[in-house]
Every structure is written in structure tokens, then in C-alpha cells.
């Protein structure tokens, strides 16, 4: 066998893992009602593929082959369990075979899997870990490294979550129409968290931008988009991720400092991602339905990525979009971001007054102090600006961001 064939097989396995893992886990989970067994059976099936495909060739339908193999492995696993413990009970995970309720939702086992992994009865950190494992197909070790948790602790977290799903009977189903918007919002929050942790990693010792996590966030959001093509918020989240990710090549300077959007080299932005993101935003505008939070955030990012230069940004539109967002989400963080845009539209003094009103709520948030510092610098209130930079540097968790803040402070 020549190297080319070996490489082809290796590529086929990598591709199958990326494309088929979630489907294999979901199909087995639905049939046997047990996530543990589904996870182990899927792992086993891929291990068999690694062993057999180089010799036997890649099957014509890799997904079907993997699912069949995983089903067989699941039966083996259950037999072994039964032999070990005669009192082994039938799996208890509940499966609802009602067709998916609302328009625009494809009844797909992967969707059931995602909703189970992102169930609100699980802690947010468990939802993230379980989604990356069960839907994303990352190994426990990869997830542990990505989220800066010890591997043994991560394994325990995932096991605990699976146990809760089984013991408390978290259902394997697409939520009813009444619950769907809220539950979907919970899923999107998990995916945004995955993406965001990649885009601005929080560990001081972490690589400042984690391509693996941003890519995973986008991939999983694309999957939901395929399954729920009519949903505006899904489209909005995907568009926002694409438009943020498009700027990644310009986000770090040669010396590893975070470069803020006003100083980024726009020529380095990824035009293909921007085009895709803009197309999604236009699609949502045509739909002419009231936008949710992610659609508004996508639109804000579309305005930024439409401007050939920072000075060309349509700030009145950005502020108007933030006004719309505040109606949906009157949080101080949204108000802070709005103030950043107000500084460009109405001047730093107006923005500073708005920012200072948020001090009570955001006093421990580094971006609050960084924003204040930049505004104070522009107003030539140097002593206060320095104090604010100091506080921001103290609170910032990302190494590249800290470097950027130090440079801005030392330039005062």
C-alpha cells in the first residue's frame, strides 16, 4: 500500500469523525436510551474503522458503516453489563417519538442529543463539556486542555452529567413548541461560550486566541443551522461568529498583542467569511421578523465589517442597533458596548458620562476600566486614565489583552 492510499484513508477517518460522530452517538443513544453506551460504542466503532479501513478500504457509506458497527458494539456492551450484573435494568433514558413540533425544525437525533446535553438542569460548565464530548466528538483530554481543567476532573464532570441525565430522566427529545425558544436560546448560549472562549481565552497562561475552540463553536452552530434552517437566532449566531472570526487574522500583532478594531489591518480580514456572514444578515433582514439578540449582534458586526476603514464606520447605525439590543437585554455590559459606539458618534465626554453610570455594576470587569481608560485618555485626563488602565490590567485575564493595555498605558 502506498503512502497516498494511507493518507487517503487517514483523511477519510478524520472526515468521518468530524461529519459523523454526532450522528453515530445520537442514533445509538436513541436506540438504546443510554448516553454512556452511545459514547463508548461510537468510540469503539471509530477504533474499528482505524483498524479495518486501511486494509479493507473506506466503505462507500462511512456514516452508515460506523452506525451499524456502533450499534453492534452497543449490543456487546449491554450483554457484557448484563452478564456482570443480572439485575441490570433496562436503560431509562426517555425517548419521545413524537415528530418535532415547530416548522423549520428537522426531526434529527442529533438535535435531540444537543437539547439533552444543553438541558437547563445541568450546570453551564457541564453543558459545555458534554456538548463538546457528545456532539463535537472531542476527547475528554482535549476538552480538559481546552477549558483548563485537569483531565480527571473533566472526566468526573462529564460522568456526573451523564449520570444526572440518566437518573433524573432528562429527556432525549426536541422541546415542545412552547419551550423551544427558551431551550434553543440555552443551546446557542453554550455554543457562543465555546466560541468566545476560543476568541478571547480567559487563562492568563492560555494562548490568547484558541483556533480550535472558535472552529468548534462555528462547526456546531453550522450543524444547528442545517437542522433548523428557518430559525433567525441560529442564523444570527452563525453570522456573528463568522464576522468576528473573519477579523481573527488581524487580531494579534507580530509581538502577540491584542489589536483593537480601530487599529486592525482590514486587508487581513477574511473576505470569504465576511461575505458569508453578510449574506446571512441580509437573509434575516429579508425575513422581516423582529430580530433577537444574536441577529442584532450579527448586524452590528456586519456594520463594522462593511467599513473599509475604521473612520468609515456607520456609527449612528451601530448606536441604533445597540439601542435595539438594550430593549431585549438591558444589561450593563450591553450599555458599556453601546457607550463605546457613542464615543465615536457624540464624542468621548458623552460616552464617559454613560460609562461612569455603570461603575456600580461593572467595577470588577476589566473591559469597564479599559473603556474608561481609553475615554479618559482621549479627554487628556492622563492621571485618571493611568489609574483606570492599572485597574484594567489588574483584572484582565488574557495575556494579549494585558499586553495591549500596558502599551496603551505606557503611551500616556
Amino acid at each position, binding site marked *: 500500500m502506498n503512502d497516498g492510499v494511507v493518507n487517503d484513508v487517514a483523511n477519510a477517518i478524520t472526515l468521518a469523525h468530524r461529519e459523523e460522530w454526532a450522528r453515530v452517538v445520537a442514533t445509538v443513544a436513541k436506540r438504546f436510551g443510554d448516553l454512556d453506551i452511545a459514547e463508548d460504542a461510537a468510540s469503539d466503532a471509530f477504533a474499528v474503522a482505524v483498524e479495518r479501513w486501511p486494509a479493507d478500504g473506506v466503505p462507500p457509506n462511512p456514516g452508515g458503516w460506523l452506525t451499524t458497527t456502533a450499534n453492534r458494539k452497543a449490543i456487546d456492551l449491554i450483554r457484557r453489563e448484563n452478564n456482570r450484573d443480572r439485575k441490570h435494568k433496562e436503560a431509562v433514558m426517555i425517548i419521545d417519538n413524537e415528530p418535532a413540533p415547530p416548522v423549520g425544525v428537522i426531526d434529527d437525533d442529533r438535535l435531540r442529543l444537543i437539547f439533552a446535553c444543553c438541558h437547563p*438542569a445541568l450546570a453551564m460548565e457541564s453543558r459545555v463539556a458534554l456538548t463538546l464530548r457528545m456532539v463535537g466528538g472531542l476527547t475528554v483530554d482535549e476538552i480538559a486542555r481546552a477549558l483548563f481543567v485537569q483531565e480527571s476532573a473533566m472526566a468526573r464532570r462529564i460522568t456526573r452529567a451523564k449520570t444526572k441525565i440518566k437518573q*433524573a*430522566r*432528562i429527556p432525549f427529545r426536541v422541546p415542545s413548541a412552547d*419551550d423551544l425558544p427558551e431551550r434553543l436560546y440555552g443551546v446557542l448560549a453554550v455554543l457562543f461560550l465555546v466560541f468566545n472562549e476560543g476568541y478571547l481565552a480567559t487563562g492568563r497562561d492560555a494562548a490568547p486566541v484558541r483556533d480550535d475552540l472558535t472552529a468548534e463553536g462555528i462547526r456546531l452552530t453550522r450543524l444547528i443551522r442545517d437542522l433548523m434552517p428557518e430559525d433567525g437566532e441560529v442564523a444570527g449566531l452563525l453570522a456573528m461568529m463568522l464576522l468576528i472570526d473573519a477579523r481573527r487574522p488581524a487580531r494579534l500583532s507580530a509581538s502577540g498583542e491584542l489589536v483593537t478594531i480601530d487599529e486592525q489591518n482590514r486587508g487581513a480580514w477574511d473576505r470569504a467569511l465576511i461575505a458569508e456572514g453578510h449574506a446571512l444578515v441580509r437573509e434575516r433582514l429579508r425575513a422581516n421578523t423582529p430580530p433577537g439578540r444574536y441577529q442584532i449582534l450579527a448586524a452590528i458586526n456586519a456594520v463594522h465589517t462593511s467599513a473599509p476603514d475604521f473612520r468609515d464606520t456607520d456609527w449612528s447605525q451601530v448606536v441604533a442597533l445597540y439601542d435595539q439590543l438594550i430593549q431585549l437585554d438591558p444589561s450593563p455590559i450591553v450599555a458599556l458596548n453601546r457607550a463605546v459606539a457613542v464615543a465615536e458618534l457624540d464624542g468621548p465626554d458623552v460616552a464617559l458620562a454613560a460609562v461612569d453610570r455603570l461603575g456600580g455594576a461593572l467595577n470588577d470587569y476589566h473591559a469597564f476600566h479599559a473603556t474608561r481608560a481609553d475615554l479618559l485618555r482621549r479627554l487628556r485626563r492622563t492621571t485618571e486614565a493611568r489609574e483606570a488602565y492599572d485597574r484594567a490590567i489588574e483584572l484582565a485575564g488574557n495575556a494579549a489583552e494585558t499586553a495591549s493595555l500596558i502599551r496603551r498605558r505606557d503611551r500616556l
Partner: protein
Amino acid sequence: MQYLISVIDDGQAQAAGRIDSATADEAAAIDVFNEQMQTDGHWVFAGGLGDPSAATVIDNRGDEPIISDGPYIESKEFLAGFWIIEAADLDVALRLAREASRACNRKVEVRPVLQEEA
């Protein structure tokens, strides 16, 4: 599948100046909720509990039973009552628990009752 809904008092009884937990309004809301649960087939059993100071702890694992006065754990929060409900899955149980919390004016905890091994 059965779930235990525990009612957690974190100051409501004290605020109402009562030793036993529920006020008349709360008791009326609980009655309405209970009736609905019975109609819908979720009802198994429920009860309100006396004040924790009325508790007695017994430990008979040694040679002699040891009897002590008061609750096994001293805390500001205490178990004020409970429901045992029948629900198909956690989504159904959580929906009922939301109504239960509203009716009794307290936070509640939902836990699955372990099923008997076949």
C-alpha cells in the same frame, strides 16, 4: 417515574411570624395546585412539616439508641414540606415544580426517586 419535590423555607415562615410554615394565602394556593395535580394524574403524596425545633434525631446503629432533640442539621434553610409526584421525565417534573414553587411561595428542589431494580 417518581420525583420528590422538597419545599425549602429560607425565611418565609419567620417573616410571616409563624411556626408552622404556610400562611392562609399560601395554603389556599397549594390546595388549588394539589387539585390540579390530582386531576392530571401527577399526584402521589404530599405533606407539610412541623417546625425543625419539633424534630427528634434517633441513631440506633450502635448498642443503644441515641435520641437527641432538634434537627440533624442546624441551618437557616429548612425542609418545610414535600410532594411526591409522578412524571414521565424531568421536563414534566420541572414544569410542575415551577408551579409548586409559585403556589407555596418557596424555592423547591426536585430529585428523582430511585426506581426499584427489576
